[in-house]
């Protein structure tokens, strides 16, 4: 399916891209820094866990897919209605497909990149990568099963922000797992940040000022909210009404902000409880989060339109996404480290520019 979508050569580029990122990252870590193979081992283990959790999150939307909420999303899922196959068996097949997919296209090239740099000394790390991946998949599936007990019907449709936005909000709140599935995705991604900051000495610089850098980071990883918002319908679903795909895209962008800003703010307030910062830090953190969320939805919708869940797997799009993020997010993270040295205006200026560029990208995005 992916090779059809992205054509063969483009698809083959994806594992190559992962390999190059792994090779360059491992080389930088081993050869150009004071860190050693031990750190690489730990990073590989955590990456495996993180990817496993992401793959296992399929459990959150598989039930809805099975009920054909998503239309004939794909033949494999749809076949539960026409062939003598149980939903459980289909879910397992789907999961197996994803495990194979991630193994071949992510884990293997990642491992080869690390091995080429540090040799077999990283063998234990490779074991952790695969072990962490399996553990993550299992943990996410257990959590998604528990989440089916969460009621999601308390919200009702409202056209306060427009009918399409109202429907988007209802879709995400009433689908399996409700808002918890989005919360879960953000927890996984922000957990990665806190884990690295707290347990890896090389990242401990961030602890000098964790709230502001966390504000930058959570706005960046909020792309996962945009992914969730685009899981439940397609612009074609509305073509019989006076609605075009641009209107659907605008509604998705607005829905993103309505869901993402309160959720990410909740995470930030949680962080404020642990790291009681000054009012200035708290305000800067919230501003950073808002600015980077605008940039994220602008960039995400500009590069992937209404299909973030698979267009980001196109290596060209993926590299553009990484590159565009590094232009604004990396400088923001760097300045946040030294902000107490009087870089407040520079930081705010860059936040303003980031939000502005995000706004322009959002306005020029195409479905």
């Amino acid at each position, binding site marked *: 399916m992916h090779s059809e979508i992205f054509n063969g050569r483009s698809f083959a580029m994806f594992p190559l891209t992962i390999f190059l990122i792994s090779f360059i990252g491992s080389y930088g870590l081993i050869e150009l820094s004071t860190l050693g193979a031990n750190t690489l081992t730990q990073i590989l283990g955590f990456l495996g866990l993180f990817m496993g959790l992401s793959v296992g999150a399929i459990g959150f939307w598989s039930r809805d897919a099975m*009920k*054909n*909420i*998503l*239309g004939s999303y794909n033949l494999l899922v749809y076949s539960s209605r026409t062939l003598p196959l149980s939903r459980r068996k289909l879910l397992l097949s789907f999961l197996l497909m994803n495990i194979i997919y991630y193994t071949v296209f992510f884990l293997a090239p990642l491992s080869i990149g690390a091995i080429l740099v540090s040799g077999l000394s990283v063998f234990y790390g490779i074991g952790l990568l695969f072990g962490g991946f399996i553990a993550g998949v299992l943990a996410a599936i257990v959590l998604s099963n528990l989440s089916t007990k969460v009621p999601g019907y308390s919200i*009702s*449709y409202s*056209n306060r922000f*427009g*009918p399409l936005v*109202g*429907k988007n909000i*209802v*879709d995400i*709140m*009433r*689908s399996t797992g409700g808002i918890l599935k989005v919360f879960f995705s953000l927890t996984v991604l922000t957990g990665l940040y806190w884990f690295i900051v707290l347990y890896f000495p090389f990242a401990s610089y961030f602890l000098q000022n964790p709230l502001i850098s966390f504000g930058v980071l959570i706005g960046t990883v909020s792309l996962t909210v945009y992914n969730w918002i685009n899981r*439940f*319908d397609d612009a074609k*679903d509305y*073509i*019989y*009404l*006076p*609605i*075009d795909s641009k*209107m659907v895209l605008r509604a998705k962008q607005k829905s993103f902000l309505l869901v993402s800003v309160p959720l990410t703010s909740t995470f930030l307030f949680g962080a404020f409880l642990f790291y009681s910062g000054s009012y200035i830090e708290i305000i800067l953190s919230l501003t950073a989060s808002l600015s980077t969320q605008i940039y994220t939805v602008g960039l995400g919708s500009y590069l992937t339109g209404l299909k973030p869940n698979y267009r980001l797997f196109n290596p060209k799009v993926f590299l553009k996404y990484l590159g565009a993020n590094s232009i604004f997010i990396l400088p923001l993270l760097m300045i946040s480290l030294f902000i107490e040295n009087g870089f407040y205006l520079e930081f705010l200026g860059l936040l303003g520019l980031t939000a502005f560029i995000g706004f322009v990208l959002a306005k020029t995005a195409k479905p």
Partner: protein
Amino acid sequence: MEKSFGDLKALKDISFEINKGEIVGFLGPNGAGKSTTIEILTGQIERDSGELEVLGQDPEDDPVELRSRLGILPEREDPPSFLTGREYFEFISDIRDEEVDEANWIERLHLEGKLDKLTHNLSKGERQKLMIVQAFFHKPELVFIDEPMTNLDPVIQEEVKQIFDDHSETIFLCTHNVNLAEEVCDKVFFIKNGEVVEEIEDTQNLREKFLNNYDY
């Protein structure tokens, strides 16, 4: 007009005219090009060539504006959504800026007790009833209908025919149901392999005429 999808010529130099107030049938077997024709006429997809006017405008000029004047009943299992039936009515009312006369439609299409269920929990026939409501509730100047009777029981089928009859504006009906076309249409076009092969003004004995054209 003409339309191809890759090597497949879906519509080949198709040409026809429909007058205001007519119920026109577009009859043909599966894959003849009926749904493609509706999609082009309603601005859902673009044609490759040809001239076209629907309610005085080219559908490609401003498809959203055109669709605001139309009713469209597509051939698909909509609405697949987490909205309840009642919320779906609110949704389409908001989209079209016109209230759905809920009580009237509940009575006509036997929707009592169904509107508080999530639409994806309704049966296919019940979902089709909601789709019929969305195509007609705003009294559009022109309604495009693709296989309207799918999944409907005979009682509701009769009511839907009555809805067609009560709707005094133009209806463009795509179907392979010859009996339905014979019963409700003023005029019928036979379509085959992307071409109009015959225009029938007298819809009596339509089945015989249809079978003569489609001897495969």
